[in-house]
């Protein structure tokens, strides 16, 4: 047999030969950013030697400053749920800009089916429907919300898969449509006073629990199911996926449906947590969700990224946001800095891709 130039290794799948995972880099970045804020806390004269994440004051009964940790994960949990869906869309080679307004519209609709009849003994002043819609079982608003998400996602996915409209344009249109639906639903009036069982869904640390449960579920799905494999394949090389016999169009519709259902679920949790729904809810959420995914190493060119990365990206996002508040940076500067960080993450990703291509 002819000698080959492919080395002498023969066939193997040695685990030790696998590349350094990208997620590890993000974890290191997370530690570095925390460290940076710790140092700032010591250096900045107006900070009085506070610690960012550690318990240094009063009781010393725990290692960490639990209050701040809780705030950080609560802050990122709801947008994090959206980011789980956005991650799948981006891995498949698309983008979803409609998730923020979808949160607003879904929250309005969901809350209309979750209202309670009596508020402190008085009739609900914000009632949307008649008596039949009061005190419904909690399953009904949840199912209505998820169905609405699935419907919007099916439209997004069908537009992209069957008409060839770029995902950016299709979901930008849906962005406006959803914001319109949110305002039209009650002519701009907020919807409030949910049933107790509905309010339980987003109470306390429940958003974090939902986020982690869904993260585990979708990590498993992306890693171990045919759906996950085809999502990566389509984002990696759509023509190859088609020629391999994957039904690319049907798969894209499914991906956008799942993403929009996750956004709708985020709306359920958010309106439950706030005990009210307003048409303006979810502003910038689509961008923050994309940012979490991109910071977490999901490549905007498709084919690469992971749920673990996005969860870490969400943590980085939360730590940075909380850290800016901690060092008393004004909210305007926070938005600007956030924008710079997102651009930086994409530049870094492109640079890494070039490095990888040069090595191959």
């Amino acid at each position, binding site marked *: 047999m002819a000698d080959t130039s492919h080395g002498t290794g023969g*066939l193997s799948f040695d685990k030790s030969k696998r590349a350094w995972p990208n997620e590890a880099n993000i974890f290191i970045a997370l530690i570095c950013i925390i460290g940076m804020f710790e140092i700032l806390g010591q250096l900045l004269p107006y900070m009085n030697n506070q610690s960012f994440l550690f318990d240094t004051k009063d009781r010393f009964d725990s290692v960490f400053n639990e209050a701040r940790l809780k705030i950080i994960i609560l802050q990122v949990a709801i947008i994090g749920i959206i980011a789980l869906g956005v991650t799948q869309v981006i891995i498949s080679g698309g983008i979803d800009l409609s998730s923020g307004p979808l949160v607003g519209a879904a929250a309005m609709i969901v809350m209309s089916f979750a209202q309670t009849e009596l508020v402190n003994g008085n009739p609900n002043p914000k009632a949307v429907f008649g008596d039949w819609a009061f005190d419904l079982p909690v399953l009904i608003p949840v199912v209505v919300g998820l169905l609405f998400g699935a419907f919007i996602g099916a439209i997004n996915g069908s537009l992209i898969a069957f008409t060839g409209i770029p995902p950016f344009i299709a979901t930008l249109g849906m962005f406006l449509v959803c914001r319109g639906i949110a305002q039209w639903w009650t002519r701009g009036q907020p919807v409030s006073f949910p049933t107790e069982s509905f309010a339980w869904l987003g109470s306390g640390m429940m958003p974090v629990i939902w986020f982690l449960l869904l993260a585990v579920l979708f990590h498993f799905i992306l890693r171990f199911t045919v759906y996950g494999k085809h999502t990566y394949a389509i984002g*990696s090389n759509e023509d190859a996926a088609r*020629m391999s016999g*994957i039904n690319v169009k049907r798969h894209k519709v499914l991906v956008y449906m799942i993403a929009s259902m996750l956004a709708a679920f985020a709306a359920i949790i958010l309106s439950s947590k706030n005990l009210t729904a307003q048409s303006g809810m979810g502003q910038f959420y689509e961008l923050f969700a994309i940012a979490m995914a991109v910071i977490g190493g999901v490549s905007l060119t498709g*084919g690469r990224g992971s749920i673990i990365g996005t969860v870490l990206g969400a943590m980085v996002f939360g730590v940075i946001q909380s850290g800016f508040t901690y060092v008393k940076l004004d909210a305007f500067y926070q938005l600007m800095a956030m924008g710079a960080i997102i651009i930086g993450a994409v530049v870094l990703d492109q640079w890494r891709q070039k490095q990888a291509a040069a090595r191959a």
Partner: protein
Amino acid sequence: MENDIVLKTEDLTKHYGGVQALEGANFELKKGEHVAIMGDNGAGKSTFVRQITGVEQRTRGTVWLYGENVAFGGPLDAREAGIETVFQTLALADDLDVPDNLFLGREKTRLDWLGPFRLLDYKAMRRATIEGLEKTAVKIPNIRNTIRNMSGGQRQCVAIARTATFHSRLTIMDEPTAALGVQETAQVENIIRTLKEQGEPLILISHNMRQVFDLVDRIVVFRRGRICANLDIKNGDITGEDVVAYITGAKTQPEYQEAA
């Protein structure tokens, strides 16, 4: 007697708007036979393959596979009917590893009632991958690496191993060695010889005269969308110069006069 013929086309024609990319191709491939398709760029070779494999829909004509009249709606139909194709543009997903690419679109799965969320049987796919690569004597240092990090030859070998792993009724290769070095080309040619020994029929599109004379039984020459020659090269009275003459249009076989 009909069962002796793997593939037969009659009057196979493809027009792109006003352009006649393929005109009235009558083609036959017998069991165990390896046939090369040659011709200049734009002669209709790849167009011919795309009509057979269902990547495009033909304008006119009939295709029989093992005596059965077939009209594939897409590449998956062709593949399910047993036609394996190595495309000129490698149909590989760069971000996936070797087993993933080998089994793309026909993964081994468990719990199939879960529909699109059925579980991947990674273990079985890895095992089958190693068996397949051993059968074709392809060496790849680590099959868990993504395709992105592999050399052109390794990528090509993965694409070909895909066709060889799944026992196919007809294998089609579109310029499989066009971008390869000497040793990598030798490896691909070895795989083709293995297929010949196993009696698997093959259509090979190639520009490489030496390779074609080394590997196949018969050469079919395309020119400006038409077949202009059908040359049996086993008895050795056809030379490379003859083939070049047919490709450039200096010669045309009498039975294909309308192609002149």
